[in-house]
């Protein structure tokens, strides 16, 4: 099952199966049709991908991933979210969160992690949790928001 993921990539409200097939992302519509290529270029293993619709103007799921890297200005670490819109487009930068780790702060954690979800009535978004345990919500067309409490 780790080589399969699930989402609606055809805008019909029916769940499709996503996998890497013949070296590219491919879907089986409603789990009943043969594989067909979804993306001409991308082939990231699906186990670490996030699937949710980020757009208000369509009903097609997007594919996302995030990476954690050092900030070039040494201000902390960046969590960078990448999105393939509808699973068919190349990776594009979707959201970035900067977090600074202070080893002398016992309340901080050593973890940065992320989630996706339907965090607005009409669209989805990403949630990045920083070293201070605060959630950063990033949603297209909306101002970034923070959780009102540390997790």
């Amino acid at each position, binding site marked *: 099952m780790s080589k399969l993921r*699930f989402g609606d990539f055809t805008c019909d409200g029916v769940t499709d199966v996503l996998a890497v097939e013949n070296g590219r992302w491919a879907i089986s519509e*409603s*789990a009943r049709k043969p594989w067909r290529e979804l993306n001409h270029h991308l082939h990231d293993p699906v186990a670490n991908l996030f699937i949710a619709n980020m757009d208000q103007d369509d009903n097609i799921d997007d594919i996302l991933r995030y990476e954690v890297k050092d900030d070039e200005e040494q201000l902390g670490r960046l969590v960078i979210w990448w999105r393939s819109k509808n699973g068919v487009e190349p990776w594009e930068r979707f959201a970035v969160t900067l977090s600074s780790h202070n080893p002398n702060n016992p309340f901080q954690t050593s973890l940065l992690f992320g*989630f996706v979800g*339907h965090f607005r009535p009409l669209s989805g978004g990403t949630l990045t949790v920083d070293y201070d345990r605060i959630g950063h919500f990033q949603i297209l067309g909306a101002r970034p928001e923070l*959780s009102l409490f540390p*997790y």
Partner: protein
Amino acid sequence: MDSSTDEAILLDNNENVEIKNNITKTDTYSKYYSQCDFDGDGIDDLFLATGTTWWFSSSGKFHWTFLNTSSKQLKDLRFGYFDDDDRCDVITESDSGRWMISSGGTAPWKPLEQVWLPGAWKPLKDVWFGRFDPNDLSRSRRTTHAFFRKDNGEWWVKKLSDPAFDWEYVGGARLFR
């Protein structure tokens, strides 16, 4: 309580107080599920299973709210909208492998379906819940089907609402590796 300090509760002395370690021997920080709506407001919430209790944070922004007492942890659980309301339900499997539902994450466990035949239950680790009826274009949020991948690569789908509807083979091992 001393109003000049930040603490909500101050321990005045240690008499008759027993301080124990984390009894579940686990750290569930960051182990959340983020794609289900427990308060029915149309916005996904964060779900947390500590090993002894379940909690949710409305839209991920608000404080943890108690749902239930259960030792089931995130790895043991699946989520979806299995009954007739807009609140997320929680699924697990019993020791006998039967699928059990906690409606809204707050109700006691009960069998997801009372009348399924023996053998209808598949290991949850090989199951995904979704909407797999190609003729149902209603875009409802309701979870209607279970998808099962056998060890040999075969795919099977079962309609949840109809006890007479057995697992339907939808894909072969050669076609769907």
